[in-house]
């Protein structure tokens, strides 16, 4: 749970602005699961999602000055681009399939310079998925994310060692990712 504009974000951004390909490779390695998970959740198509992943990183590489580390984290930024590209794809597909009915207008265009915000239906899906987590994982996730507690505070409130809380949160996030990738939720 790092703050926006960490040193790491800034340094990677500086290197990408300066044309350092290795920085792009590091960025790809670090954020691939995030961008793919997001694109997959929206498009439901692995090949399309992989294309979107590439396009997201190429877009960041081509115009890195569109990102401002003072205004948000790199991962929010990449998530915003991924979300927009995935939604665009879904809309284009729908237009192709049901040309007569026109596009589905359910999701607003995210603003690139704002922190990433979930669409209403996506938010509901996340909350449902959290509510279905096993009790111990759900408690830890709810305290850490819903209530904004630190790892230490979460550990104190649950009367557990901090290490245990960290593992529970990590496991909870993995289960959430699986649940969100599932059509049923």
């Amino acid at each position, binding site marked *: 749970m790092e703050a926006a504009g960490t040193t790491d974000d800034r340094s990677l951004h500086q290197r990408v602005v*300066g044309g350092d*390909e290795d920085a792009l490779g590091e960025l790809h390695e670090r954020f691939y699961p995030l961008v793919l998970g997001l694109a997959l959740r929206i498009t439901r198509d692995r090949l399309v999602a992989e294309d979107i*992943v590439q396009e997201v990183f190429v877009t960041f590489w081509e115009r890195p000055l569109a990102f401002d580390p003072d205004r948000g984290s790199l991962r929010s930024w990449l998530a915003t681009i991924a979300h927009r590209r995935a939604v665009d794809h879904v809309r284009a597909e729908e237009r192709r399939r049901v040309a007569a009915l026109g596009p589905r207008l359910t999701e607003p265009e995210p603003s690139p310079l704002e922190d990433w915000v979930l669409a209403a239906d996506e938010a509901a899906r996340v909350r449902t998925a959290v509510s279905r987590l096993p009790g111990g994982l759900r408690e830890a996730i709810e305290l850490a994310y819903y209530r904004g507690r630190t790892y230490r505070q979460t550990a104190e409130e649950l009367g557990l060692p901090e290490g245990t809380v960290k593992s529970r949160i990590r496991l909870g996030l993995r289960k959430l990712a699986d649940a*969100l990738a599932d059509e049923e939720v």
Partner: protein
Amino acid sequence: MAPAPASGPDTPFVPEPGRLARLALDAYAETAAEPPAGARDRLLAAARVRRGPAVRAGFAVSYAARVAAMDALLAGATPADWATVIVEGWTLQELVAHLAATDSLVAAAMGVRVTGPPIAADEVLSRTADVIAYQRDRDPALTRADWRAQAEAICARAVTMDAAVPVAPGGIGFPVGDHVLARMLETWIHTADAATVIGVPLPPPLPAHIHPTADFCARLVPLTMALSGMTPGAKALRLELTGSGGGTWHVPLDLSAPAAPHAGQPADVSITCDTVAFCFLLGGRGTPATFPADVDGDSGLAADVLTAAPALSGP
């Protein structure tokens, strides 16, 4: 921290949207996904087509990175941006033509083929006028491509040269490595000029790229004083540049020896200021009279140093 919404046993707690989004992103980041084989190479190949990476550049590495940064700014420039006046009455397109013009004098001195019209006069202002006239009615994308190609050729040539070889583009004799550092500083400053006018945030160069430029600026101080008609005699400056890429230098002001890292030598005056601000002052950005610096010792001498600092800066 925002106050938590009221909740009781019967009302489910509703987290604020930002926290829910953070949770979703953290969950997606835990997606068990490995990039397919070859994904990284395909990504780099696709990225190269859209914006060339900084070329391997030997002693020109910090210049190559500034070229890449300016190119990133140009990649996002709209037609309106290209026509916007940035500095010296030049539009962005004319500014890029000016960079290409000054680069071309260094390119010619390094034995690199120049882009644009043949060089008629080895002098910045008339060369700039020629290149601007040549580029003015062309598509800005072509101006960008010409400038970038020539800059990359300079970097490629730098790999095969000794940085200490003296060259004299525009009649100014320095080691070629210093001429390239001067190109780095000017490219950086003009990119910052354009970023300010267009309204995009420009991150600073990496500390490892700022440091050699700061060293170059420290070494220029005696020359800027001589050019300004100031002859302090056998006096010395201790210059402490703070922040990213900085350091401390001992600068003899009588041209007796080049500035070197400070190693306890006595000095007549000590100036402490921000590294980037000092480099930009040498580059003609900032006002010597109000330049933020801490001075210890001969304050008149410090004022002379700062007043003379922009003496080498041109358009």
